[in-house]
Structure formats: C-alpha cells, structure tokens
C-alpha cells in the first residue's frame, strides 16, 4: 500500500554496525501519529517509522482541514474574502488580514492613510505577540511543562481583550480591511495597550526563568532537529524557523511594508547558545526574543499614532484592474504570500495562498530521521505549524 511505504532520501541503517547479530535486532514499527494527537497541533498526521524509540523516517499527511479557501476566493468578492483569511492561520488573523489587504491595495494602487498604517502595525504586532505566546506556551506543553501554557494564555487573554475592544472579536477579527482598518480604536485604547505592554515586558523574563533556561528544557531541545541555514533556505523555511537557523531575514526589514521602515527594531536570530545553530531551542528562543521586539515596535507606533482617517476612499465593491501581483508579509510563522490574479472583475480570478506553515512543515521529513520519538514533539512544536494554514 502506497500510504505506508515511506519515502526515504537516504534510508539510514543505524543498527547495522556489523557486530550485533541480526536476530537480536528489534524490528521496525510503523506508528501513526495523528490526525488526532496532542502534539501535532491540529489535524496533522505523521506516519513514523520507528525502531524502538528511534525514529527512522517521518511522512506528514495533510488535508484534514482543507476548506478550499483558494476556490472560495474565486467565487466571492474581494471584501468578502477578508473573513476567510482569518481562518488561514487562526492564531494570527490580523496578520492574514493585513497580507490580503496589502496584496489587493498593491494591485489596485490604493493609498492607505498614515493612522491606518500605524494601527495596522500595532495590531499585527500585538497579534504576533499573541501568536508567539501560544507557540511558546504550547511548546512548553509539548515538552511536558504545563504551567507556561497557562501563563502565556493569561497574557494572551489581555491581548484578546484589546482586540475585542477594537473590533468585537476575539479570534477572527477581519479588522484590517482593504483600504485601512474597519474602524478607529475606541477612546483610551492606546493607554490600555501601553498598560498591557508595561505588564507584559517583565513577564518575558519570567518565561525565560521558567522554561527557556530550564536545564531539562534545554536538554530536550538543544541539539535536537538541527536545521542549518542552507537547508532552511532550500526548503523555503521562513519566519522564526529561518531566523532560528541563524539567518537574519525578515520581510519587515527586507521589503518594508506599512510603516515598518520608520520603526526601529532588531531581527533576533539563533546563535546556538545551547547546542548547534538551528536547533529547536534556537527556533523557540527566536520567538521569545521577537516578542520583545514586537513590544518595542508597538511602543514606537503608539507614539507616532496621530489623528486622522483610518480608511482610504475605496468603493464598496472593490474592482481591480486586470493584472497580477504576488505580495508577502511577515507573519508570526513566516512569510504569508498572496498571489492575486485579477481579470478586471469584482472577485479574484485566482488567489494562491502561500502559507508559511506549509513550507515550514516540508522540512519535517528531512529533520525527523535519527530523532527520538519524543523529539518529534519537540520538532513539530518548534516548527510551530497551524494546520489551518497548511491545508487552507
């Protein structure tokens, strides 16, 4: 059967050292991890070929959450598709909205007022923090530490509160729309946001004490699933996975959108402090450091936020000129790309979505061999896939 015939690049024969007689060798076991498994973070199925605890090969199978977003896009108008982008990476809905809005604006030549641009930056970065909180917390959970998850959720709740105050939703916002943001933030929202940042910044040190520099945690994640930068680039890894491999590549710096070029921030990269560069710990810690940078960005953006309109003059039914565009933004999980083809109508002729998790996950079969079974959880958690985006 095709399904369980695993495809190896180089089938490792780790057991054959020429001395151990073959009859006391253990046999290989095919282990079906998922689609429902606590550490696959959704409905991912990984077929593992194992020898005892040693994983010899892993083949991911996706499609359990395939909702045909690209096909739906061809049937609905541009504005109507914004809520569907919420469901791609449901942990970073603001960023998805932003990517789609920017792609449409690029093709339609729509200018966005400055206040909307700064609000977009603020909300995108807040959502980046929320998403990274989820990633770090659930990574602790994958490693068997329950408490960081709850702490991270405690802070995430606050961000959800801020989002709720701005747009009324806690998960699927559809707040950043074509031409700006849907409506202005309520009175005093900026102060609440600052209050949150003041509260949140010291908490990052707390996570580091509790989890990042925990000896067991470092032993579990350091030197595990090492992805050298060449491999990461070759497999199209982006976001924290690529930066964890030591490559300072961030679209917010490389091809700045919104107002990121006016804001001052650093690109954290993995240095291999606790193992080799590009191991799980590096990928994890890049996320923690990115939260600090996001806080910096939000503070600056809040300072620059001046009164003004938050919506450009865009007709109710958006009509784009015929043509195409490929636009990418830096999402919490990597670069989210929209390849938008228009034939001059009111709905996209074709919309291809490049989910960062989709590309990040493709490196799993390469990194998984020679890991232990428990390392698969570490690996998957550090790649931090959201299946809504892999399957779209």
């Amino acid at each position, binding site marked *: *059967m*095709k*399904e*369980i015939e695993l495809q190896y690049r180089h089938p490792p024969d780790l057991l054959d050292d020429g001395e151990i007689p073959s009859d006391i060798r*253990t*046999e*290989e*076991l*095919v*282990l*079906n991890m998922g689609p429902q*498994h*606590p*550490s696959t973070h959704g409905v991912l199925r990984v077929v593992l*070929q194992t020898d*005892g*605890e040693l994983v010899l090969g892993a083949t991911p199978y996706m499609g359990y959450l395939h909702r045909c977003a690209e096909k739906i896009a061809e049937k609905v108008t541009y504005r109507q598709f914004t809520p569907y982008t919420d469901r791609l990476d449901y942990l970073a809905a603001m960023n998805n909205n932003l990517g789609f809005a920017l792609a449409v604006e690029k093709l339609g030549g729509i200018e966005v007022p400055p206040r909307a641009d700064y609000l977009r930056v603020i909300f995108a970065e807040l959502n980046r923090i929320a998403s990274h909180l989820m990633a770090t917390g659930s990574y*602790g*959970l*994958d*490693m*068997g*530490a*329950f*408490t960081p998850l*709850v*702490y991270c959720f*405690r*802070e995430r*709740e*606050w961000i959800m*509160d801020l989002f709720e105050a701005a747009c009324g939703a806690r998960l699927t916002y559809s707040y950043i729309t074509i031409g700006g943001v849907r409506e202005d933030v309520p009175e005093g929202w900026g102060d*609440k946001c600052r*209050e*949150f940042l003041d*509260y949140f910044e010291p908490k990052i040190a707390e996570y580091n004490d*509790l*989890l990042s520099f*925990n000896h*067991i*945690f470092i*032993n*579990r994640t350091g030197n595990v699933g090492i992805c050298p930068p060449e491999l990461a680039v070759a497999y199209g890894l982006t976001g924290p996975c690529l930066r964890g491999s030591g490559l300072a590549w961030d679209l917010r710096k490389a091809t700045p959108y919104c107002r990121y070029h006016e804001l001052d921030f650093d690109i954290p990269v993995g240095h291999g402090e606790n193992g080799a560069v590009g191991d799980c710990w590096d990928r994890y810690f890049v996320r923690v450091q990115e939260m600090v940078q996001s806080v910096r960005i939000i503070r600056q953006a809040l300072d620059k936020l001046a009164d003004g309109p938050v919506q450009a003059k865009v007709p109710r039914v958006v009509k784009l000129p015929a043509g195409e565009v490929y636009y990418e933004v830096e999402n919490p999980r990597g670069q989210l790309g929209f390849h938008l083809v228009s034939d001059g109508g009111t709905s996209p002729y074709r919309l291809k979505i490049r989910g960062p998790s989709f590309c990040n996950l493709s490196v799993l079969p390469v990194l998984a061999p020679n890991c*232990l*079974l*428990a*390392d*698969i*959880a570490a690996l998957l958690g550090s790649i931090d896939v959201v299946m809504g985006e892999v399957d779209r």
Partner: protein
Amino acid sequence: MNQTANIKPQTPLGQAMFVCERPKVEYRGLSLKIVQLATKWGPIGIPLLLRFAWGIFFAALVFVIAFVWVVGRFINPLLPWFVRDVVVVVGLLAFVSIVAIIGIWGERKVSGRIQSRLGPMRTGAWHGWAQSLADGLKFVQKEDLIPQDADKPLFRLAPYVALVPAFCAYLAIPFGVGWVFHDSDVGLLFVLAMLAIEVLGVIMGGWASNSKWSLYGAMREGCQLVSYEIPMGLSLVAAVAWLGSLSLVELGRAQDGGWWSWLLFQNPFLFAAFFTYYIASLASCKRSPFDLPEGESELVAGFHTEYSGFRFVMFFFAEYMGMFAVSAVATVIFLGGWNSPVPGLASPLWFVIKSTFLVWVQMWVRWTLPRIRIDQVMHACVKYLLPFTLLLFVGSSLWQLYDNPDHRLFEGFAAVVRFGLGCLGLLLLGLYFAGAAYGFYHRNQLVGQMVRKHLPGA
C-alpha cells in the same frame, strides 16, 4: 507488535476517514446494572449528594472516627486475629481511598494555584472539594471500552495488578508504633517488592491494549522502573545500614527524640541519600519529570490510552496510592516517621503530615518541570544516580565506622556537621514557607486587572 511493518491493511486508503457507522454499544452484566442505576438515580441523587455534601462529609468523618475509636477500644482486643485483620484491612482500604481521592483533588488545586488559576471551585460547597467524588461518579457511568483486538483477559486484569500491590504496600507501612498491620522484620523490602509488582500491571495493560502508544508507554515504564529501583534501593540501604534493621517500625522508633535525631541529619551522605531516594521514587511513581510512560504530548496517554471508566480510575488510584506509599517510606526512613520535631509528641498525625508534604512536593515538581527524554532518563540513572548512590552508601558506611566514642575528634566533627545539616534543613523549610506566604500574599498581583475579571469566582 511488529507485524504492522509487513502486513498491509486490507482496507483501501482513506477508508477510515469516512466511517459513518458507529459500532453498537452493548452493556452487559455489572456495567449494565451500573449504567441503569446511574441513569435512574443519577439525575436525582447526584445533585442531592452535592447539595448535602457538607453534611455527608461531616457525618462520614464522625462515623470514621467513631468506628476507629470503637474498634480500637473495645472490639479489637476481643476479636480473633483474622477478624481483626479484616477490620484493619478495611480501615486501610478506606484510608488509601481517601488518600487517592484527596490526592486527585489536591493535585488539581495545587496545579491551579501554581498556574494562577483557582482549580475546581464549584463541586461541593468549599473549593470544589467534592470534585473527585463527582469525577468518580462520572467514571462509573462511563462506558467500559475494550479495544476489539485487545488481549481481553489481560486487559481486564491489568488494573487490578496495578492497584492491589499498591494497596498491599500499605500493609507494612507503620503509621505509628502499633499502628501497623503487620510488623515484619523485612517490612521495607516488602514495600519495595509490592511497588515493584505494580509495574507488571502497567506493562500488562500497555501490552494488552494492542495499541502502539500503550506499548511504548509500557516499554518506557519497564525500563524506567527496573533501572530506578536500584538507586532507590541503594539510597535506602545506606539508611538501613546506619540503623541496622529492615523493619520499618524499628527504623522509625530509632529516630525518636527531636528533629536532630532524624536520619536525614545523621550524616551528609544520608542527607544526600534522601534526595536521591526522592528522585528515584519520582521515577518509580511515573511522576514528572519522569512521567514518560504516560507522557501525553508524546504518547497520547501512554499505557492507559485505551482504558476508560472504572479501569482507568483504578490506574489513577494506583498512581496516587503509590505516590503516598513512597512518600511514606521516605518519611519513615529519613524524616523520623511519626516522631515529632520536638521530642515527646509522637503521633500518626505527624506521619501523615510529613508524607502529605512530600506528596505535595511531588505535585509541585510536576507542575513546574518539563519532561525528560527517555535516553536522558536512562543516562541520569546509570551515569549519575547509580554511581552517586553507591558513593553515598560507601560514605555512609565509612562515617559510621568513625562515628563512635573511640574517635573523639571525629565525633565532635560529626556533631558539628549534624547541626549544620539540621540548620540547613530548617532553613530550606523556612524558605519554603516564606516563599509560600509571599506567593499567597501577592496572589492577586499575579494577574492583571483586565485578566482577573475572567477568572471564575472573581
């Protein structure tokens, strides 16, 4: 287990995705009776039970106290030995059940507090104390699932094999002088033997489930327990060699007379042996960071993945009973058992308090640390714990050799070290209580203003 690599499934690909028909469930025998009773009386009985939970709780408390008093005062001397044994065993059963029930509730409260939550708050009137009772009722009503290709007799037997030895361990644990079912001269070995049998139930359940995740859990449990028994035993042997007895009652009695006479503070090697024992006992109870057999992020639920209903509860009970049992052994051997910190107040209450504290620390560790990987577990045992405990054993023996009236100078040195160790222990305890008090005082500052309103009971 290995057939899967060779034998291909007969069903075509993707078939399992679209199974619409649910297998019909048939209740038979006892399960049928329980489900019938539960569906008939549950909707009335459970709310009533919970409404009068306080009353029932106090009534039960009064009844148990009266029962123990009457048995101890009047019935016990009159009865033939086997009837007395039955009574004591029933009492012990009640005690370990309460330990497990309170342990399960306590674990949830502890985890809640550590995670700046509240834990169960609704069931029962006060801090959700009846939560484990409600859970028990739920579990009894649950469907008793057995996987189709499971080895059914072994699958049914496994929870008992896990539970019964965990209970049997209590037969030799003394709660005080005279408060022991059977004072054997090999009591310590008996407890260890019983805790060693417990692993059989786990392996049996893991294997009989016919699930690969369960099998992995069983394998991990097997390796882990067999290896960690050695450092655990060696740490205890150091203590046993110090006092020269395997009888738990003797060991406890020898530590009479204040906290400085506890074995923990007798020499630095025993002080370290307490911690090696405690670490090894965490591994033998499958507690975090050694909870690999049931590591839920890796193995779903490990060896009890396929268990549901009351069989699952039995595994759960076995775990909490085992936790208390190893803590009880640590208490008797290292912490002076039922002896009070100041001389003359020996009581079984001290024993329970100390053991509960150790169980509490197990929970504390569990909700703080991540899980170790299996190769690190084995390395930690073979490379570090085992040589270290051997060293402790040798060191403790040498210390004993010199610590006698013939070596005046050394005796003075030993006294100083003992005093220092005692102070260290007290300091640690004081730090702990200070930290706990600080955390309690600042409990409202853990969460922000906007977050706090989401907490239940806020």
